[in-house]
């Protein structure tokens, strides 16, 4: 796949083809199987052949991986029963076969039309992710599109060993519009794109340590980042959980009362906000690193 394509503009199937070895992808439960949502059909809403997620196995630098990519344009990439079951099965297969699993996320969370079934499906997928982690099978979430990873998919992404993000990606639990509805426009203006991306976008998430890699918006860069993480895993231990808790407490103490996301950037090493805003993935990371010295 040509490097001229921006990763966030590609379709789910193009993204998988672009980050894996040429011709190595074999789709599981492909469109001709017609595993579509029974709930949407009952409600008279058009269904999709793959229920909004493409799953299968492929190779990256010759190494076998299980891989999934969500289709953000189909009901916002939201997780219904079938969609979630496909993800659960993929991670279970990864744990069973001890093969790394990559999920390219583009989802607002659970599909409201099939809420309970979707919630349960996400919970089951998280369980399968922890099965992988217990066996030291690497699990990697890629968050690189404007839809990002919200709701249940935001939580699910943080259950994985690692997160690869681009500056387009966003990660959170409640989406901007939901926060605005609850807290008021004064507290959080969801139409302010700079504010939204500065609070939940890839750059900020990387500074805070929620994303493990911040890369250019190109399939080659995403692929390289995945390749580096395929041989690593982050064990789930009491010691690590406690250390993480300490980090989060420190973060809350330091930035909990901050109203301006620029203060967070400054606090984490960004000296020139304007330059950093224009810098892309790795350049931004380098600026922040230099600033911390």
């Amino acid at each position, binding site marked *: 796949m040509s490097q001229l394509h921006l990763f966030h503009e590609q379709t789910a199937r193009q993204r998988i083809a672009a980050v894996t070895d040429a011709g190595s992808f074999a789709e599981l439960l492909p469109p001709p199987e017609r595993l579509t949502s029974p709930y949407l059909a009952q409600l008279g809403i*058009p*269904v*999709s*052949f793959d229920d909004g997620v493409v799953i299968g196995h492929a190779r990256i630098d010759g190494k076998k991986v299980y891989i999934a990519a969500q289709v953000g344009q189909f009901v916002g990439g939201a997780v219904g029963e079938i969609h979630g079951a496909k993800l659960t099965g993929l991670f279970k297969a990864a744990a069973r076969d001890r093969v790394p699993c990559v999920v390219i996320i583009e989802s607002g969370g659970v599909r409201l039309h099939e809420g309970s079934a979707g919630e349960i499906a996400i919970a089951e997928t998280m369980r399968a992710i922890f099965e992988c982690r217990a066996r030291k099978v690497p699990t990697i979430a890629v968050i690189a599109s404007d839809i990002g990873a919200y709701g249940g998919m935001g939580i699910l992404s943080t259950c994985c060993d690692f997160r690869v993000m681009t500056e387009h990606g966003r990660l959170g639990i409640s989406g901007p519009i939901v926060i605005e509805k609850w807290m008021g426009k004064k507290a959080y203006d969801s139409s302010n794109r700079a504010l939204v991306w500065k609070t939940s976008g890839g750059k900020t998430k990387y500074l805070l340590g929620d994303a493990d890699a911040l890369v250019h918006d190109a399939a080659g860069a995403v692929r390289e980042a995945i390749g580096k993480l395929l041989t690593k895993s982050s064990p789930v231990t009491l010691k690590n959980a406690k250390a993480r808790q300490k980090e989060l407490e420190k973060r809350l103490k330091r930035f909990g009362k901050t109203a301006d996301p620029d203060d967070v950037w400054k606090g984490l090493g960004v000296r020139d906000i304007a330059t950093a805003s224009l810098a892309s993935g790795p350049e931004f990371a380098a600026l922040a690193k230099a600033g911390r010295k």
Partner: protein
Amino acid sequence: MEKFTKAFPSKPLRVPKDRQWALAGVVGSGNLEVMFERAARASDTMECHVETSIPGFRDSWLAALADFARHYPVGGTKVTIHDQGAAPVLVNLRLRQAYDHLVKTKP
């Protein structure tokens, strides 16, 4: 939601049989997904299944599909469409894209 099925006469598909299906488009607002599959049945018709969220445009659909079957050799295929309000010109574009994916040896 409106559903209908119809077969249209078309010249037989002339490509090697390694590719069994092809997909184009996505079920999003003003968009549609089109899947071509090789059908076991007659090689001189294109069998169409349409599901659309916008009822009342059956005649336009049938005209667009008949036109496509006349211009492209797609006999022996089954076309399934999930539509969420696409304009006719986009329907035609997706049909052509899916056909391209089906007949090209490399994606």
